[in-house]
Structures are given as structure tokens and as C-alpha cells.
């Protein structure tokens, strides 16, 4: 078992030998390529989003955001994230615990299954739900008979979002928990702690940074998901439109300011996520590096 405590928490100060240090022109060239690329493909679009959103002034911008349909889209997006992120935290911790802490049949299968949402197009994930819950779908008749509406309603959107985002927390925790092994849990049990106390006082603190990281990414994806949600939502304005869907509708109606105003919120969310992630890494970088598996 690798002992994480022996591992140095110091950041690595790599002393480069003269042999592998590039010449000055080479370094300048590499950095120029990297920054130019990022500038054109990431920074420029971001600036354009905010630029377009504010093209007709702050008044038009705030008006677009206070439009009832826009507000309903924002509310729905927050609601979907508020449901699917906690669900995926529970699922992610359970799956990671099962895979990392004990042996069972079908473990390799479960591990592969967790990656499925990453390997399948989100549109397909959406279609699966249509086939399953749609009027002509497998469970459609039964659902209709019992008056349960899933498709083209909030439950369908939540399901699609949960499906698309469920790898984030689990993928973050599995390597972490595998690396940490069972030693700390055994110690806690031998000291008389019950399962819940062991989880709460020992396991959770050991994985908290990885968990936070996973939750952050999961949340960003949950709010930004387009493909799967688009298939199951039905695009009912003011009812089943999330922010990404609302952006598309406005854009297709040539309402650039409205589309970009809502888009700027999503871009803002991305920026906040990045800043939080960077802050986490700055504040707890060494700890995260030491406890993260990759």
C-alpha cells in the first residue's frame, strides 16, 4: 500500500538542467503559439459574448434578463442543477465507495458503465429517454395510465441531466479512494467508530477536495447541458426551457442581445467555476495533488 503520508506535500520545484532547457527563441515561439491559440479560440469568443450582450447598452441587457421567459429559464436551470447535483453526489460517493473499497462481481462492468455518458453523444442519451418514456415508448402507456408526466416536463430534463453528469463526481473520487485504501477506515473501526461515523469523520474529510472539484465540474455541466436536454424538453417557453435552450431559441429569432445576455450568464458561470477551481488549487493545491489520483 502506498503511504500517502510519506509523500511530500511540498510543491515540486523542478530544477531544469541546461540540456533540456530550450533556447530563448524556441521558448518564445512555443509560448506565442499557445497564447495565440487560446486567445483566438477561447478569449475572443468570451469577449464577443459580453460585447454582443451589451451591444445595445446596459438597459437592454438587464431587460433581456428580466424577461419572464428568460427568468423562467434561469429558474429551471437552477432547479435542475439543484436536483441533479445532489443526486450525483450521492451516486458518485456510493459508486466510488463500492469500486474502491471492496471487491464484488461486475465491478469492471460498473466502472465501464460510469464512463458511458462520456462516450455516448448527449443527443443519444436524450433519445433513450424519449424511447423509454415517450407516448409510444416502453413505459409510455403505463406512465400515461397513472398520470405521470416525464417527457417534455421537468422530470425528463432532470433525468437527462443526471445521466449526462453522473460520471463527474464518481470519476473524481474513484482513483482518490483507491489510492487511499482502507487503512484509515480500519483504524476508525478499531477505535470503536460505527460505519456512519467512519464515513463522516474519516472518509469524507479525506476526499473532500476531490469531491468539491467533482461537484464544481458536475454543476457546470448540469447548467450548461444542451443536447440531451434539448431532446427531452419539448422547448415549451416559460415551462421547459433551460438557459442553453433559451439562448438557442432567442438566437434563432434574431434576438442577439437577448441570446447573448443569457449566454453571458452561462459564460459567467464558467468563469466563476474556473476562478473557484483555481482558488481551490492555489489554496489547497499541494493537498489536492497529493490526494488526487490523476
Amino acid at each position, binding site marked *: 500500500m502506498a503511504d500517502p503520508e510519506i509523500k511530500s506535500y511540498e510543491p515540486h520545484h523542478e530544477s531544469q538542467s541546461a540540456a533540456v532547457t530550450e533556447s530563448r527563441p524556441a521558448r518564445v515561439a512555443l509560448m506565442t503559439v499557445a497564447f495565440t491559440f487560446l486567445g483566438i479560440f477561447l478569449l475572443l469568443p468570451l469577449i464577443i459574448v459580453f460585447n454582443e450582450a451589451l451591444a445595445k447598452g446596459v438597459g437592454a441587457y438587464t431587460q433581456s434578463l428580466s424577461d419572464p421567459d428568460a427568468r423562467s429559464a434561469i429558474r429551471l436551470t437552477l432547479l435542475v442543477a439543484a436536483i441533479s447535483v445532489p443526486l450525483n453526489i450521492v451516486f458518485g460517493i456510493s459508486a466510488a465507495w463500492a469500486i474502491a473499497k471492496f471487491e464484488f462481481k461486475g465491478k469492471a462492468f460498473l466502472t465501464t458503465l460510469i464512463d458511458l455518458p462520456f462516450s455516448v453523444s448527449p443527443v443519444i442519451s436524450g433519445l433513450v429517454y424519449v424511447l423509454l418514456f415517450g407516448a409510444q415508448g416502453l413505459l409510455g402507456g403505463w406512465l400515461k395510465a397513472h398520470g405521470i408526466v416525464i417527457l417534455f416536463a421537468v422530470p425528463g430534463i432532470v433525468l437527462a441531466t443526471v445521466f449526462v453528469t453522473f460520471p463527474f463526481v464518481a470519476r473524481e473520487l474513484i482513483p482518490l479512494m483507491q489510492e487511499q485504501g482502507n*487503512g484509515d477506515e480500519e483504524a476508525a473501526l478499531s477505535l470503536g467508530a460505527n460505519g456512519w461515523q467512519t464515513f463522516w469523520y474519516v472518509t469524507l474529510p479525506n476526499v473532500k477536495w476531490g469531491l468539491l472539484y467533482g461537484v464544481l465540474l458536475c454543476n457546470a455541466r448540469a447548467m450548461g447541458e444542451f443536447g440531451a436536454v434539448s431532446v427531452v424538453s419539448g422547448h415549451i417557453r416559460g415551462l421547459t426551457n433551460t438557459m442553453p435552450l433559451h439562448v438557442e431559441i432567442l438566437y434563432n429569432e434574431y434576438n442577439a442581445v437577448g441570446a447573448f445576455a443569457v449566454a453571458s450568464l452561462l459564460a459567467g458561470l464558467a468563469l466563476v467555476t474556473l476562478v473557484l477551481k483555481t482558488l481551490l488549487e492555489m489554496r489547497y493545491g499541494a493537498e489536492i495533488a497529493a490526494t488526487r489520483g490523476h
Partner: protein
Amino acid sequence: MEVRVANVRKEFDRFPALHDVSLDIKSGELIALLGPSGSGKTTLLRLIAGLERPTRGKIFFGDEDASQRSIQERNVGFVFQHYALFRHMTVADNIGFGLKVRHGPSRPPAQEIRRRASELLDLVQLSGLEKRYPAQLSGGQRQRVALARAMAIEPKVLLLDEPFGALDAQVRRELRRWLREIHDATGHTTVFVTHDQEEALELADRVVVMSQGRIEQVGTADDIYDTPNSPFVYGFIGESSSLPVKVENGEIWLADRPIGLAAPHEPSGDATLFFRPHDVELLDGCSGCIAGTVAASRRVAGTRRVELEIGGERQRVEIELPVDHPAAQKSRVAFRPGRWKLFPTA
């Protein structure tokens, strides 16, 4: 607390790690489980702790059958090789953990837990480090904290899994002496696992030598070293040399010559002769001795170790000579083992 292991068998995926092991541990005893890796010593320790359940057999704490009790109910102090300290808790919180997770009236107030923690830190000679985190301690200090944490719950039995395995030689020796002192002061029944025979022989009241999932021998350091009861124990404990010999009419023969050792009670037939390299008598002439050609000679600390080729079968044995002994310069050396033991060849 007396601990009795009764006919315990343990299988992992149908692969037996322990075969029918029985062991009586007296109250207040310091006992070592010694063996090479894969001998089952750690499995036995984990079975006593309740970290594993036996496939067959029972484990008694006193008169009470503990086999079906969970690790929480057994109230054992377990010290892990890699300490397993909770890295996000201070030293004081680590030590107090076992008391903090108790329920109801058996849980002491926070102030009392803090007091117990500093008391135990005094005992393990780390006073003043309450607020440190495990990452800020040296390996030896971490292991002391781990021991203090295990003792905080006033365990019936203290179990240590290779407690000094991850430490360097100097710290190991220091902690060994210190563990003995703590044991003598507190009187806990203590079982520790080690693959280091020096550690086992020096520290333990009794040593349990294990091999391939079985107990080979249980005894004091003197018993184990002076009267090993199997070829494995003879070979595993201390230095040993062995030669294939034959017993005939109560005499030991090497190839076609008697070597001057009488074995009146041994049955005739093939056997293996074991002796200690340092326990030999050098002889000048050779009528009834083991004689060999010097194949190699090495200086090892205070002695000289000489490798001898014996007879035509290319058998090699090692003996130890005083550094300035003239025999080391010769090309041929004759000797007779002082203390020795025969095991019939199976």
C-alpha cells in the same frame, strides 16, 4: 486479558492463508508473531482484531467467544504499519477519536478527552505536540501517536502490525526499547507482527514462529534459538549451516566417513545436520570431523566467515572464525559442530 486462538482456519477465495492454528496468549504477555512474508502472521493478527472473520475455529477473549463479535465490540487497540493516522486531524484529535465516537454516558466530556490525550502524549514522550498534524511529524513520532491513539480506548489487547517496519534502523531500535518500557508500565496484553527476528527475539516474552500458514514453534527467545524444533525454524532464526548426512548405528556419517558425532537415539537413515556457524570446534587432525577446502572468506564485523567445500558432492557450509585465527589462512579446515541438531530427511 487472555486470548485463545482455537483451531482457526482462514481462507481467502478458497486459498488457505491459515491452517488450523491454535495459540494461547497469557494475560499481560508481550508476544511476537514472526515469519517470512506470506506466512500468515498478519492474517492471524487481523483475525484476533476482528478485521477478518475466521473460516473455521474460534477466538476467545478470556472465557468469552469473540469470533462473532465485530471489531468495534472487541475493544482492541490496533496499530498499523503505515500508522493510518487521520491526516486532517491534529495529534490530540487523533488520540481522542476513540473516545469521541462513543455513545451515551460512556463518552467522556470534551475536556476529559483532551486531558486523556495529553496524558497519553506524555506517556509516549511527545508532550506539547497536541496541535500538530500528522504530516508535520517524523515517522517515529507518527508511530508513537498511533500507539497513543490505540491505547486511548483502554483496549483489552494491543495489536501491532509491523509497527516499526516503515522506520529506519536507528529509530527502530529506539522505539523497540521504548515499546518494551511502555508494555512493562501499562501491562497490556500485546501481540505484534514482525519479519525481523532480532526485533522478535529481543522484545517479546514469547515468539511464535510461523511459516506457510502454520505455527512452527512457540517459545522464549532461548527456546527458539537453542532448540529449534524444525528445519524451518533452524534455518529462519539466526545463522545456520546444514549438511546432508546419514545415521548408522547411532553414528553420523558424511559420505563415507564418520564425523565423530554420536546420535544414539536417532533412527538410522538419511538426515540433515544443522549447526550454527559460530558454534564450531576447529580441529588439527581429522579422524572424525568435517573437513573442507576454503572456497571463500569474508570479514563480517567482528568475525571472519569462511565458506567451505565439503567432499565430492560440492556441498558448501559456512563457519565463523575469530578474525586473527590462523585457520583462515589455510586452504583446508577441519571442524566439528559444537551444538547441533538432526532432522530426518523426509
